[in-house]
């Protein structure tokens, strides 16, 4: 069976942010916007969930955009075209519910730009007017400017420090869009947990339905372990099968942050060991 998980392209998009195009024909054919894969880079490695940034069914490849944050992603960064991932499974999760609602703001914060990209494409294909926002702390953390420009009807760039585009946070971007368009019919916000939390808080006040995509700790990705559970509207949901997208107004982001931090010390120690060993 043709499932080599060979790396066919590798491109640095920003410092510590890398694009990987991986051969996985069945996943490339099946995947829809909003879904993800689980990757195990090598024997002994973790199973890590990664959102699918793009796919080319004809070439049989999926595109993953990964930020180096720990041992597994550092192992991945060492791969070169021709190398293989030990395992890749997907597409996992429920696809984005795409419908024509009018004007949709697709906001990608930092590494969240990657998963927002296919959703922007799908929202536009469904006949929506898609206004895109790229947001990050600093211009070095931005990428996919061209890809997002193509996927959206219009695109604005925001940085916390004003190093590119407008100066301000993702919430400032939302306010500006509302001011400019009169109203937004939907917001899709994907990025770091605090960004999604504050955007959701604002859009709740403004009464704009908001989708967020969560990236909690996960092991199997098929509903078997429950490690990825989150509280949504006071109900426990499994992100891997019920998500990864949820109503941002209902998600308990603080609980999510605390659960995400569980392995912080172990991850740090492991990453330091990896860096020492691979020097």
């Amino acid at each position: 069976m043709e499932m080599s998980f060979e790396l066919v392209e590798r491109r640095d998009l920003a410092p510590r942010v890398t694009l990987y195009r991986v051969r996985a024909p069945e996943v490339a054919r099946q995947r829809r916007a909003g879904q993800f894969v689980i990757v195990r880079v090598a024997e002994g490695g973790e199973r890590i969930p990664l959102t699918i940034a793009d796919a080319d069914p004809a070439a049989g490849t999926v595109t993953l955009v990964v930020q180096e944050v720990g041992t597994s992603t550092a192992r991945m960064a060492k791969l070169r075209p021709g190398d293989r991932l030990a395992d890749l499974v997907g597409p996992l999760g429920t696809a984005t519910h795409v419908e024509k609602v009018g004007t949709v703001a697709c906001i990608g914060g930092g590494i969240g730009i990657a998963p927002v990209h296919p959703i922007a494409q799908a929202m536009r294909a469904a006949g929506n007017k898609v206004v895109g926002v790229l947001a990050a702390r600093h211009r070095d953390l931005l990428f996919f400017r061209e890809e997002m420009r193509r996927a959206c009807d219009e695109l604005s760039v925001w940085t916390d420090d004003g190093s590119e585009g407008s100066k301000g946070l993702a919430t400032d971007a939302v306010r500006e869009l509302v001011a400019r368009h009169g109203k937004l019919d939907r917001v899709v916000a994907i990025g770091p947990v605090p960004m999604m939390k504050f955007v959701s808080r604002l859009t709740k006040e403004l009464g704009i339905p908001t989708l967020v995509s969560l990236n909690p700790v996960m092991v199997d990705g098929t509903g078997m372990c429950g490690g990825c559970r989150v509280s949504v509207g006071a109900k426990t949901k499994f992100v891997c099968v019920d998500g990864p997208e949820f109503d941002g107004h209902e998600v308990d982001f603080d609980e999510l942050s605390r659960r995400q931090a569980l392995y912080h010390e172990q991850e740090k120690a492991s990453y330091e060991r990896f860096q020492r060993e691979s020097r």
Partner: protein
Amino acid sequence: MSTPDDKTPVPAAGLTAAGTPKDLKARYKTTRQTMPAQTPEQRIHNFQEVPLGLAADQAKAEAYRCIWCKEPECVKGCPVNIDIPGFLHLTEAGDFSGAIRLLKRDNLLPAVCGRVCPQEEQCEIVCKVGQGKNGVPVAIGRVERFLADWERATGSVQPLQVGPPTGRKVAIVGGGPAGLTCAADLARAGHKVVVYEALHKPGGVLVYGIPEFRLPKAIVAAEVHELERAGVEVVNNYPIGLTRTLDDLLTEFDAIFVGTGAGLPYFMEIPGENLAGIYSANEYLTRVNLMGAFDPEKNDTPVIRGRNVAVVGGGNVAMDAARTALRLGAESVQLVYRRSRTEMPARKEEVEHAEEEGIHFQLLTNPVRYLGDERGRVTAVECIRMELGEPGPDGRRKPVPVKGSEHQYPCDVAVVAIGNGPNPLVPRTTPALETKKGKIAARDESGKTSIKGVWAGGDIVLGAATVILAMGAGRKAAASMDAYLKTGVW
């Protein structure tokens, strides 16, 4: 390796017939052989197997205890009806090669079953040697394990005999005990078999759930390797319902077996259950077993090594989690179970092992909420005492909370082991498949489903049960599938 007794023919089916032995008295007098085991003090510091297995002379002596019943009840007690007296006779005579071949005719995973089957509830409970006062049944499971281990250790594993190719293709969905057994039987019948496994390694609960100290993973890998040598194709990383649907497979295969198991952990839905440090047993055991978190030098996947661990539940999985916690360095492990010891669904042997190792059993106790610190980490579980009330619909007395009996156990890790629901991936994406409370509805014993050409078995049909019942279901389905593939009659 070839030995002269490799030539001993193994009958295709049926039980070995034998007359009543003349030395019955001597047989009765022979005592049940004890398996050497690691002491509790040793084993709580390692992940190696606890019982070390019988020696060859012990196995022969144990087999000698069989009294050759005319109507062996043990065979009826076994979910796959192994010719138990047959393999015991051969073992007694020292023909281990003949014994293992006879055993494998009926059960392809004897090394697994010899370790994880609840023999005390199946073959051994009905053994006539064990009836009456002071009767102790033949240790059938220990002999079974000995034979399988002997075969592997001596390198005399015979390749699986496969029939002439039939040109028919079968898909097995899920590489757990049900699926692997089904795959083996269908491969033997000459069909082309492809096993689709969602995880990166086949074996199902045998690799992610049951710990190394109960079932070494090398054994499962060897059994799977044998299947592959017989031409069975195992495709990992391939969840049916996600990568492709069952309906897709139907266009390509002549028959399908679904054995996707009970892979949806239940939680109690009590306050604080999403605090960090609270695991489902599935997650906890998967991190340690499948992902190898017990050995951080070789594996990246972390697990929290709790100092005080609380495990909720009274089944085998709860015992496995509690004993795993000890081996990860816990100072104290509380096993919290809402009924009394008699109702515990775990195997007696597992309960004993857990007690010997120093697990504290908090019986008639039920969690009501978890408490946490400012970082959102669990710090304690609050429990309430229970008393047994009237029998419920299942005949077991219903536990009722005792008012005002709340008390707490400190814990930095809690493991919820209260069972699993059926895996929803296949039913959710196969509209024509009839289900009953989430489980796939089987029309009869063979496991035929509402879709022509599709069978199901194991935990996805039964709900969370045992490895051997899943294997029995895989075997029954295989026989029915083989008949269908040959006759076309559904």
